[in-house]
């Protein structure tokens, strides 16, 4: 069987073209990518950088589960989920999710399902570093 899921946790910059290459397939007519980016502000405060950490083995197994669920739920072909850990500057990419499918609607739905679910279940945490302090995102109200 051809491998149809690629999960990567990496300290190095992520590559959109690597994700695209993994999901490409002669039978795929549509590919949808979600690319996260580090914004320069949040709730009106200026962000200097973000620090990401992961409970790595479980982060990988949870991302694998999400991709398997998405393939089953939406009937898509291949999924790549690449996530950064470590320190990220403004504009860097914390996550890329690529989904290929025979038809585009399923690719959009599956890609959105993957990023929505990743943000709920995958044990990865980010700390926002401001000029005057830092905060674990979403930890407290």
């Amino acid at each position: 069987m051809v491998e149809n899921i690629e999960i990567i946790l990496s300290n190095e910059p992520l590559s959109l073209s690597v994700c695209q290459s993994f999901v490409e397939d002669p039978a795929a007519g549509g590919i949808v990518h979600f690319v996260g980016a580090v914004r320069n502000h949040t709730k009106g405060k200026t962000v200097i950088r973000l620090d990401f950490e992961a409970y790595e083995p479980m982060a990988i197994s949870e991302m694998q589960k999400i991709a398997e669920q998405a393939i089953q739920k939406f009937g898509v072909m291949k999924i790549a989920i690449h996530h950064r850990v470590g320190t990220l500057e403004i504009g860097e990419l914390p996550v890329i999710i690529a989904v290929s499918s025979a038809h585009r609607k399923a690719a959009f739905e599956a890609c959105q399902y993957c990023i929505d679910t990743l943000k709920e279940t995958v044990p990865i945490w980010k700390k926002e570093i401001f000029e005057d302090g830092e905060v674990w995102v979403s930890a407290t109200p």
Partner: protein
Amino acid sequence: MAMKIKVLCFGITRDILGGFEKEIELPEGASVAFLKQRLTDEYPQFQKLNSLRIAVNEEYGNEELVITEQDEIVLIPPVSGG
């Protein structure tokens, strides 16, 4: 009978417990719910979190799951990947 379990702390839970790896004494047969209650009693800051899940051997454990000394126990505060 008491047992000593080791918990790993990520994100804000590391700040609350003051370290990545903590040893905690629990009665034998203690559940995930028991551990959560013990943590909240000992560290009131846990009450301020939006959520606290506990992973047992790399899976989210349900509240009734019984913990043993051999398990890998990890505190999972609200996640914020992506």
